[in-house]
């Protein structure tokens, strides 16, 4: 068996002019980014800065695990969960209301207008909504709830509108043709068909919103984030460490539950 020629080796790795060009461009872009930000990575890895970092990390340990503070963390966690749950629920209701015109049931003009509104709601990030809502409703969890509701109704509205468009029209038509009012036909013939889908979408967004609600507090919108921001501002690192641990635990638990539910559904689905 002879050794592979150079050409064969190149073929095996799939090298080509185009790939090399793309790679070079990519490298140039990355290099330009570092240069533009004047990031000096070498400086980060000197002994001095490493010592400084270790000092910084050491200040966070041991975390504050006193009963009083743990109770406050539990309260903050509960608040975070409440913000996400109420926000998602409001969003599901608003999303359904907006999905009706967005699915084209009220004519093309309404459809275009609501689609634009949904896109706008969705494109503005939760944290920006939260900063605005803090101005509109004052500091506290209510602002966070509204912020999540606004962003999520944009997301859910679009998903719900798609479900509505894809729902089979025959049952509702049967009811309307036998004399039922259109609203009743919708409630009894269309809604039950898409309810499982709507619930699944809402639960999925709830999961994401729990994660989001932990950080909305950075702009003053309540929950664990507000606690963390507050403790860090006062240079209470051990307390901040406990709050971060609580955030991590919340995210991990929610992740595990959602994975478990999904596995269960998959098994059910066959």
């Amino acid at each position, binding site marked *: 068996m002879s050794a592979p020629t150079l050409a064969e080796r190149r073929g095996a790795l799939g090298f080509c002019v185009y790939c090399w060009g793309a790679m070079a461009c990519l490298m140039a872009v990355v290099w330009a980014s*570092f240069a*533009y930000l004047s990031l000096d990575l070498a400086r980060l890895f000197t002994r001095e800065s490493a010592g400084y970092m270790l000092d910084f990390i050491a200040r966070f340990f041991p975390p504050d695990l006193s009963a009083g503070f743990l109770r406050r963390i539990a309260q903050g966690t*509960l608040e975070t969960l409440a913000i996400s749950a109420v926000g998602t629920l409001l969003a599901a209701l608003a999303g359904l209301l907006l999905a009706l015109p967005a699915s084209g049931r009220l004519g093309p003009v309404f459809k275009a207008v609501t689609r634009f509104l949904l896109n706008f709601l969705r494109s503005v990030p939760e944290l920006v909504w939260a900063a*605005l809502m803090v101005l*509109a*409703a004052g500091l506290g969890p209510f602002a966070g709830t509204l912020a999540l509701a606004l962003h999520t109704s944009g997301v859910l509205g679009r998903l719900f509108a798609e479900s509505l468009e894809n729902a089979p029209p025959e049952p509702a038509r049967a009811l309307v043709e036998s004399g039922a009012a259109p609203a009743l036909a919708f409630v009894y013939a269309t809604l039950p068909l898409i309810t499982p889908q709507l619930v699944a979408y809402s639960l999925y967004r709830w999961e994401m919103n729990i994660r989001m609600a932990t950080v909305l507090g950075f702009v003053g919108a*309540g929950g664990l984030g507000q606690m*963390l921001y507050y403790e860090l501002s006062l240079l209470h690192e051990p307390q901040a460490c406990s709050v*971060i641990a609580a955030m991590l635990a919340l995210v991990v638990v929610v992740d595990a539950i959602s994975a478990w539910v999904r596995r269960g559904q998959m098994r059910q689905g066959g």
Partner: protein
Amino acid sequence: MPRSTTQQALRDPDARARATWALAAVVLLWPLLLVAQFRPADLFDARNLKVIGGFLGQFFPPNLNGEFLGLALKATVETLAMATAGIALAMVLAAPLGLALSHSLSISRIGPGPGRALGEALRALTRLALLALRGIPEIVWALLLVRAFGLGPAAGVLAIAVTYGGMLGKVYSEILESGDTRPARVLLESGSGRLMAFFYGLLPGSAQELASYTVYRWECAVRASVIMGFVGAGGLGQLMDQSMKMLNGGEVSTILIIFLLLVLLADAISSAVRRTLA
């Protein structure tokens, strides 16, 4: 009894179940509303109305003065550079972790032999480290790193590197396990090293998917780096935070418009690149 039959026919057969569910929902919802301090009346409080009304009133027209636009443009480029540099560092972090985590490159799994327990322990440790990296939201990392490195984009870049390094590492290892792992296995069984088995056995098959996922994460990083400015990590977000604190509605609306355009641009770039890769 003709009357009662019609009445029965008109009754909603599902009424009792619906009522029970509605009642249960209300009972569950009530404490949640209390905890979330759900008070819609706050929105119509005279003082709040004045603040937000004045602020939103300034949104039109957006501030298009040349000096401010220059600042905003600089911040936009900074945001893009933060996302790009952050993802580049994240890849540097994720590649070795992903390789360590991937079962398809495990020599000890081929058969019983020494080092199996050690390998598994190392893998479990890596998995845990990745979980902590990506489990803590990027903006929390940014908040912490701003304290360590001062205000500015360095904290943002490192926050993206850490969080997305965790995400990429996990997904890289999953991609390496989900593809055709037989070439790598054959190489390993005939005595090649792990790195060579990766380069010749796994990478050719999964390079596209790896690159495509990385580009998708770059798109997410652009969005994230805008947000991270709110804790002082540079870019558009920091500019927006300053304008918001000064209640300058015109500036905020300009930044919002730029932000929406930036997200559209990142979306377009990412889907174009991924289409070429596919």
